[in-house]
């Protein structure tokens, strides 16, 4: 079997995907079949929260692909995520139709409010789901291609590359804040009603979105693992560890980086597109530079260059974030910073690296 073959030497991935499978089956059942009075009941709110975490885990996998395996410390992946989210948001806005406050069948509310007479050209086509689905991958992919083509060909790397990825997402944030851009300004896109005709308020839609997020995470994971199992994956590691040596062996390092970067950006776009209907809003804050830095922290905490570590890191930190922002909101940023410092000092290979080490020690003793 092709799929099992991909996971052949990937015990962490087997465990992670196994747990994911169990959760994906169990959670909907516990939501639908167990009555609300029962303590085992999982409320729909929690299902959606978990679905949101899964999309962030996919985003972390995308970052691990380029940072863990290629050594490109991207601090701009939040931008690709947000662009995918906006593409989905535009489709959801068009789905509202004449049910908006102003009841305009063509124009979203914010355009009516701005006295616009017709739909801008770049909103054309977003009433079709297939078109939006293509844009969800195409827009982040094209931006990553243009950005990567310029940066990797001129051999920008290291800190400089990290800085320009930050600049990219920051510039996009400022642009999307502007009302004239036609993306709803600082309010962003919200008040979504339904997706492909299914109401977003319905439990069944929310559960479906959760399951789809799990499927997307699993598929994205398998794709990344498949790439890393190929010779291309070994070339990536070669580039990460000694870029010039790889060049002297005849590899076009810039092309390797470019294509992996594009794939990663498209995965981030898909993650963003699944995130938006579950949180119900997309606004320019998703582009803020701090978001992109946070993703890197998730990957560092989970353990770089393992892929499953990225998933674990994203889930751990986001669970902690939900907890802290509810209980002790003023502490969250300090807690995040503290976790990052502690992990870098004490667990240089992240949580998964630490577990590996414990196991090796146990095996050595046995």
């Amino acid at each position: 079997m092709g799929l099992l073959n991909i996971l052949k030497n990937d015990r962490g991935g087997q465990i992670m995907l196994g747990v994911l499978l169990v959760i994906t089956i169990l959670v909907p059942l516990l939501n639908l079949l167990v009555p609300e009075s029962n303590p085992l009941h999982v409320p729909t709110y929690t299902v959606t929260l978990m679905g949101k975490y899964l999309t962030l885990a996919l985003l972390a996998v995308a970052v691990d692909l380029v940072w863990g395996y290629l050594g490109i410390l991207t601090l701009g992946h939040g931008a690709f995520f947000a662009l995918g989210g906006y593409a989905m948001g535009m489709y959801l806005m068009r789905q509202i139709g004449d049910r908006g406050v102003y009841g305009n069948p063509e124009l979203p509310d914010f355009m009516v409010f701005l006295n616009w007479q017709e739909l801008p050209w770049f909103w054309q086509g977003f009433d079709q789901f297939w078109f939006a689905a293509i844009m969800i991958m195409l827009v982040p992919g094209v931006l990553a291609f243009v950005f990567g083509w310029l940066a990797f060909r001129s051999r920008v790397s290291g800190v400089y590359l990290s800085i320009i990825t930050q600049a990219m997402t920051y510039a996009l944030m400022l642009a999307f804040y502007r009302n004239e851009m036609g993306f709803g300004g600082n309010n962003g896109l919200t008040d979504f009603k339904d997706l492909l005709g299914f109401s977003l308020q319905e439990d069944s839609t929310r559960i479906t979105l959760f399951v789809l997020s799990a499927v997307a995470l699993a598929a994205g994971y398998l794709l990344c693992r498949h790439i890393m199992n190929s010779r291309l994956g070994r070339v990536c590691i070669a580039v990460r560890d000694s870029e010039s040596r790889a060049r002297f062996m005849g590899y076009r390092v810039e092309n390797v980086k470019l294509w992996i970067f594009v794939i990663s950006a498209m995965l981030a776009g898909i993650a963003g597109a699944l995130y938006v209907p579950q949180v119900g809003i997309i606004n320019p804050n998703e582009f803020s530079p701090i978001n992109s830095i946070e993703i890197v922290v998730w990957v560092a905490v989970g353990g770089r260059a393992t892929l499953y570590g990225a998933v674990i890191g994203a889930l751990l930190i986001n669970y902690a974030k939900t907890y802290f922002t509810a209980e002790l909101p003023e502490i969250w940023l300090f807690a995040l910073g503290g976790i990052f410092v502690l992990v870098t000092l004490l667990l240089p290979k992240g949580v998964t690296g630490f577990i590996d080490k414990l196991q090796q020690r146990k095996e050595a003793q046995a």
Partner: protein
Amino acid sequence: MSIITALEHVVDREHVYPFLVPKQAPTLDVSHKVLLYLEGISVSFDGFKAINDLNLYINDGELRCIIGPNGAGKTTMMDIITGKTRPDCGSAWFGQTIDLLAMDEPAIAQAGIGRKFQKPTVFEELSVWENLELAMADDRDVWSIFNARLNSEQSSMLLETIELIGLQENAKMPAGRLSHGQKQWLEIGMLLMQKPRLLLVDEPVAGMTHQEMDRTAELLISLAGRHSVVVVEHDMDFVRNLAGDDRTVTVLHQGSVLSEGRMSKVQQDPKVVEVYLGE
């Protein structure tokens, strides 16, 4: 071009647009027996002339030893040939047709110039086998690497090479765990897998035992003929061993050729004696 002819071109299905023709390095032409031409090359770093009007010709199939004290510019010369450093002036040709100064590192490597570094640089996290696999001559575009599968011919070539360098026991070991000498050998193996026409070998015996040195000399001599080999060393004994009585030795000093000829002749050269005794 008028609109009509432009339209005719569009309609004409046989017409090939120049930008659609894949850029290909001209094929190697060694009809004049010379594989590498370096002429009038100079490089300076912050005003310091590391290479100074260097002229060097390597024949096809030749094994050439280049000696020179530390700082003579040996490594810099290799940097120029492999595209890492751009010279301030001069020209570098691979055969009659390939202009090395117009190409970047991967293009030069693909044209058939392989390089072994002074400091062994293997990919430490990859296994010995994987290091050799990556070095192996094969398609290098992203899609081909993604789809690459070893065919039986390639596997047997890998096996042969790994035996030749004596690392068959360590095939699955991460290259970072090899000893210094083993890394040197792995790098030579990687160079062979690349099947280059010209091998540039920078100080191959640094950190090797005497036994290993002899084996290395043997291997390099056996490579000459099929490949051209340029060996850079400052270890005189090793060079004497390698050059024998009938190979050309070039002495590099302060970035240019000080003396060139048979080992016995070069050793007598008063200029060489002065440089080496003055050291």
